């Protein structure tokens, strides 16, 4: 029994050994117990409890819950215009997240993957927004987008594009894009760091060989760098999608879902339903749809991480 517990049980020589009760099959579980307690008690259990709640009509406060079966889900998929809009916004946000912040991160990583003066400072500058609370990021960019004083409009006017100036966050057409750009500013730094790590793990000799064969800079990028980053792409793109479906803070702070619900995403719509309108059952159903989508997308990512 005790041997199962040891990673390498090859020593026949036994001096003193731990007392018997410390060698049983349960030893690993004693170590795992606190983590399992918190994880199951405050993440897994609430999650399952949400699933239960999603089958009820409930205000989240009172004692009477009415069982309604799948009604909340039916409403969500068939009758709720805002939820449809929110889902569409999540999809738009996700597709854009796969391209923009990841591309910006890769671009910075390629430019900063060398030993030239200032590289460390540049990396720090690009990464710095990623350490801020998203509430602060949202407020900072709300100020950038301020119709009168914001830097965006001031710059546009200064370069003669004053006609484009507008209230970026109150305009139906630009609110979502403006919020998304804020997310790029806050998120690209992480992707840069991940890509830098990926670039540094590519064998130098491949570059040497490509150069000796007379490959152009673009050919080297296409046939050495990109394939060398395939592992990193999996992580970066998975993270981008997972984050895109979880998005909440920026939209809550910058637009509150408006104007006219045009920037609602599932994350904010769930919050408003559960905690502003007291439709706890319906909110739980939205939450479970988010969770199901994210978990499904995350399968390859989790599989990859469990192998490492």
């Amino acid at each position, binding site marked *: 029994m005790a041997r199962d517990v040891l990673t390498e049980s090859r*020593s026949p020589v036994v*001096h*003193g050994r*731990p007392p018997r009760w410390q060698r049983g099959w349960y*030893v*690993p579980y004693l170590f*795992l117990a*606190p*983590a*399992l307690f*918190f994880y199951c*008690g405050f993440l897994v*259990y*609430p999650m399952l*409890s949400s699933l239960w709640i999603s089958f009820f009509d409930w205000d*989240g406060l009172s004692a009477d819950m009415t069982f309604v079966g799948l009604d909340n889900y039916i409403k969500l998929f068939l009758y709720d215009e805002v939820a449809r809009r929110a889902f569409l916004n999540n999809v738009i946000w996700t597709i854009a997240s796969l391209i923009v912040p990841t591309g910006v991160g890769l671009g910075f990583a*390629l430019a900063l*993957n060398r030993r*030239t003066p200032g590289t460390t400072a*540049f990396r720090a*500058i*690009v*990464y*710095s*927004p990623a*350490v*801020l*609370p*998203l*509430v*602060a990021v949202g*407020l*900072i960019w709300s*100020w*950038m987008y301020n119709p009168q004083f914001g830097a965006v409009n*001031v710059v546009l006017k200064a370069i003669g594009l004053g006609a484009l100036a507008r209230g970026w966050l109150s305009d139906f057409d630009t609110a979502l894009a403006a919020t998304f750009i804020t997310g790029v*500013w806050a998120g690209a730094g992480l992707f840069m*760091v*991940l890509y830098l790590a990926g670039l540094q793990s590519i064998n130098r000799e491949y570059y040497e060989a490509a*150069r000796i064969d007379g490959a152009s800079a673009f050919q080297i*990028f296409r046939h050495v*760098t990109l394939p060398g980053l395939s592992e990193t792409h999996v992580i970066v793109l*998975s993270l981008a999608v*997972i984050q895109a*479906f979880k998005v909440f*803070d920026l939209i809550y*702070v910058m637009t509150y879902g408006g104007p006219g619900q045009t920037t609602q995403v599932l*994350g904010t719509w769930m*919050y408003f339903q*559960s*905690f502003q309108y007291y439709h706890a059952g319906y909110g739980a159903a*939205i*939450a479970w749809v*988010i*969770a199901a989508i*994210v978990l499904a*997308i995350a399968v390859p*990512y*989790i599989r990859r*991480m469990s192998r490492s």
Partner: protein
Amino acid sequence: MQPVALNPGRRRAEQTLLFGCLVVLSLIWLMPFITVFLSAIRSQGDLISNGVFTIPKTFQWGNFWKAWNTGDFPIYFRNSLILIAVKVPLGIIIASLAAYPLAKMRFRLSLPIFVFFLAGLAIPVQVTLQPLLVMMKQIGISNSLAALIPPYIAFGLPFQIFVMRGFFRLIPSELLEASRMDGASEFTTFWRIMLPLSLPALATLAIIDVLATWNEFLIALVLISTNEARTVPLGLLQFQGEHASNYVLLMAGIIISIVPVIAIFLFLQRYFISGLTSGAVKG
């Protein structure tokens, strides 16, 4: 990644060009910080008549002091610091305890349990909020910092267990064998050998966790509704609600709330950038 065969002159020109581009890009990237700073150090009247991008008539450093006091920031800072002081060490010890058997012991459920924890990386906070709120009310700790600690620990565990397990696996098993031979219990081995050898990983995780705890918003938004228990992000939003049109004060408040994370980042960045790349990242 320039071709080697280029002559040095052209190469230097390219380097200079790249450097110039990076300087310009950095300035654009820093624009939001610059805007906020230039707004926070002038008077409201100056801002309204002259805009943000002028030299302030007078430097109103007093804005920061005023924001700090009128905005209840002492309460918010105290709360966030207490939360960090309790949550970060507790969470990391719990994660390390769990990572030890997952890395160094052989038992049947090792891999399933590890995957079970990893799945938490993909669980959106939203799906736990309503039950957490009910639970905290039942325990009687809703609206207090104590309500935040258990869910923060739970949501921190997947990433932390992943990193610690990875680090523990790099520690040679011979060291553990030797300790076990000497009759040390598993816990002593863990405490006396594994943890001291893992200080770099522990430090990195601690820094990342301090930032994540300082920044967390949604769980706190749902579980906390009294001013006395607000953390910094909630307090900042509250401050914004009360002073939405007093731009200079609001900008000073924003700077106050980000100074601690910026300072941690500037002084300790080499620790946590290595940590971020060691796998994936906080959800």
